[in-house]
């Protein structure tokens, strides 16, 4: 009797939990599907029929516009991917090396160094000094490097990683030392493999930050071969806005391609910008899980 009741209760809660997550998933998925659908709908149909999950009048004009409009989107994809890959790797390397150093008790002045890092969370010079530093002193304007360097260290990430390293048991590192492992060897062979959860987390944060960064490009990049994807899409959007407000321009465009695809091009750009970065999640998820179980066994 009791067992049956328990089973039933279990069934009920399982149902409730599943239902809740189904609804939650739908709430997350439907807007994305809507974006996809709008990007595939004829602009005129959008104005007269409104938005639908299944396009009323199918059309690829939004994508056509995005791809034909300006300089090569594919080149921008390439630049963004290079920046994201190289940038995320270097960010992880620099951040982990630095955080490890200031997490170890035997390092002198670690608190002073930590303070210098964390000070910048609270106080920074603002945009104009930042611009002056990059252009006048580092001479990084119009280089691929500027896109990588400005995001290379984030104080928040250093803080998170330092706390993670601090939580690692000292005894592991000490025993490695006793076994004759050098500092680099200890760091790369012992500490980092133990830290996949934090590396995955920070890696995810920073790759998304690199992927979505358009402002650096807007400020410092003037060579059209170095435009990043997000900057190009942003420029495309504000150009559509500008063209729509310019009577002469929108009339001329309408004559040649029908209606200027405002909404659908906007959503097409959105779909394109989701792009490969969405693949980061399933790839990195493995490490989250691995890290969690690893910690569980230890505890």
């Amino acid at each position: 009797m009791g067992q049956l009741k328990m089973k039933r209760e279990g069934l009920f809660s399982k149902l409730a939990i599943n239902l809740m997550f189904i609804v939650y998933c739908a709430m997350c998925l439907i807007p994305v599907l809507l974006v996809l659908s709008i990007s595939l709908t004829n602009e005129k149909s959008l104005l007269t029929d409104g938005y639908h999950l299944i396009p009323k009048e199918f059309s690829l004009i939004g994508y056509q516009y995005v791809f034909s409009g300006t300089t090569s989107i594919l080149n921008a994809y390439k630049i963004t991917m290079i920046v994201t890959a190289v940038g995320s790797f270097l960010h992880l390397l620099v951040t982990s090396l630095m955080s490890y150093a200031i997490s170890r008790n035997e390092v002198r002045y670690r608190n002073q160094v930590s303070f210098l890092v964390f000070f910048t969370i609270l106080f920074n010079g603002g945009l104009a000094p930042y611009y002056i530093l990059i252009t006048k002193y580092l001479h990084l304007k119009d280089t691929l490097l500027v896109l990588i360097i400005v995001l290379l260290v984030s104080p928040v990430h250093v803080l998170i990683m330092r706390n993670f390293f601090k939580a690692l048991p000292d005894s592991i590192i000490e025993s490695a030392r006793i076994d004759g492992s050098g500092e680099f060897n200890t760091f790369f062979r012992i500490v980092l493999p133990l830290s996949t959860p934090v590396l995955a987390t920070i890696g995810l944060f920073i790759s998304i930050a690199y992927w979505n960064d358009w402002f650096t490009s807007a400020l410092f990049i003037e060579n059209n071969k170095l435009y990043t994807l997000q900057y190009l899409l942003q420029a495309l959007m504000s150009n559509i806005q500008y063209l729509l407000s310019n009577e002469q321009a929108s009339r001329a465009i309408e004559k040649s391609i029908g209606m200027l695809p405002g909404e659908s091009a906007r959503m097409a750009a959105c779909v394109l910008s989701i792009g490969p970065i969405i693949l980061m999640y399933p790839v990195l998820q493995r490490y989250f899980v691995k890290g969690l179980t690893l910690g569980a066994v230890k505890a």
Partner: protein
Amino acid sequence: MLHRSKYIPSVIAYILILALTLVGCGTSSDSGNTPSTSENQNQTKTTQETAKPNDPPVELTFYIANAPVKDMDRIMDAANKIIKEKINATLKLVVTDWSAYPQKMNLMISSGEPFDLAFTGSWGELNYFQNASKGAYLDITDLLDKYAPVTKSRVPESIWQGVKVNGKIYGSINYQVWGMAGAKGVQLRKDFADKYNFDWKSIKNWNDLTPFLDAVKKGEPGIIPWEYSNQADNFADMPLIYGMDSVGDNKIPGWIRINDKDVKVFNQYETEEYKDYLKTFRNWYVNGYIKKDAATMKDYLPDRKAKRIAALYANPYPDLVDMPELGVQSFMSQAPPEDKVYSYSKRFTEPFIPANSPSTAIVAVGANSKHPEKAVQLIELLNTDDSLFHLLAFGEEGKDYKKISDKQIEMIKDMYNFNWSEWEIGQSYGRMLWDQNANVELSEKMLSMIYEADKTAAVSPVMGFVFNSEPVKTQIANVDATLKEYLYTLDSGSVDPDKYYTEFLNKLKKAGADDIIAEKQKQIDEWKKANGK
């Protein structure tokens, strides 16, 4: 041994930080050098080719707002051939997206980064007047006379007054294709006006429109009789309709009357005109001529594109009374052209040049420019050399456009396209090329009418005066907040003016409207004295 190893991580960290900084410097100076050396090679090559023994051409940078342009390099190569031959210089046109351009320019100015030419203006965050008085731009009063006489002479002297700061010119006016003089009025759908026998030729103010709006409301379900848009408020954004002109930002209290020789500043929200306006628009709203959510609506384009608007505010000069033949190409704003929604346009006012219109589009020379003479020569070239201007605006003939008649072209799809931003770099008028949609004869007649009006139109009594809002910054911010709260709901007729009008005025006073008006008056009086008016 153990003691030493303690330092290793920190030493590594320091070295890495140092190394990264150095790497940053190293590569950047490398990349800074490579293009310039290759350019030098190009330059020596071309100087040998043209066999000109004089100095190598200087590179002029020109910053404008525009989306990235396809095939820009090809067009720039062709353009630079012309520029090099004419003034021994090359042009490097740097385009920055509209959403980041003003910020980028302001950063470049505050960091003292040199540039030769830049597009600017007195709207949005472009801040021409502030930047000019800060010393960001070069005083080109004399340079213009010397190196750009044609550009200078084409623009009437009264309009040059509008870009002067302390009596000096800091930028060349892109005297726009559509001229300076404007009139305010309305645009009506032709089919409805004809159907209800509305005498559109005799409307002179908002009230005259009421019968038309009423007929549309009763006879045309699904049509919005009047478009109120908070992007262009029917009172606060169009002082001209009420015989007034704004001083500084439109909506901030402190307007003047255009026929007032003493130039007295007053609060526009306290005038009889405003009370009449509120009465009319409340009446329109209550009767359903204005959309219910008009006060908060951000995007008016969908309604226009879906042809749901029967009448709206417009800047019709010349209107259909001045030039009836314009009717064949006069469509409702933003309506799909293939649907041919014809319109009537009627202006309420005489052509007039407001104080802020000369500074709409300006090309300024940077204060740190190394070649200001060449820069001004380039301004002259862009304004007078039609082949150069057409090249930049439309591309190369045969590749990017086809000529379909003497003055008309057809753009080729997916080729070079300057995004209709050529008004930022200058203008070639008189022999302007038109795209395939324009009716050349009509457009030229219209333009000549506008240019004529520019010489005769009334000019704002405060032309050339620049309001410095710094002393009343706080009051302006407070007033702005009050305006956001009340203005659009009152002006769209959404709330009853009997209840909220006095409240609105009191709040404005409390926010410091009177201080702003007094400050404007003080500055205008000083300006008048200094200019002997």
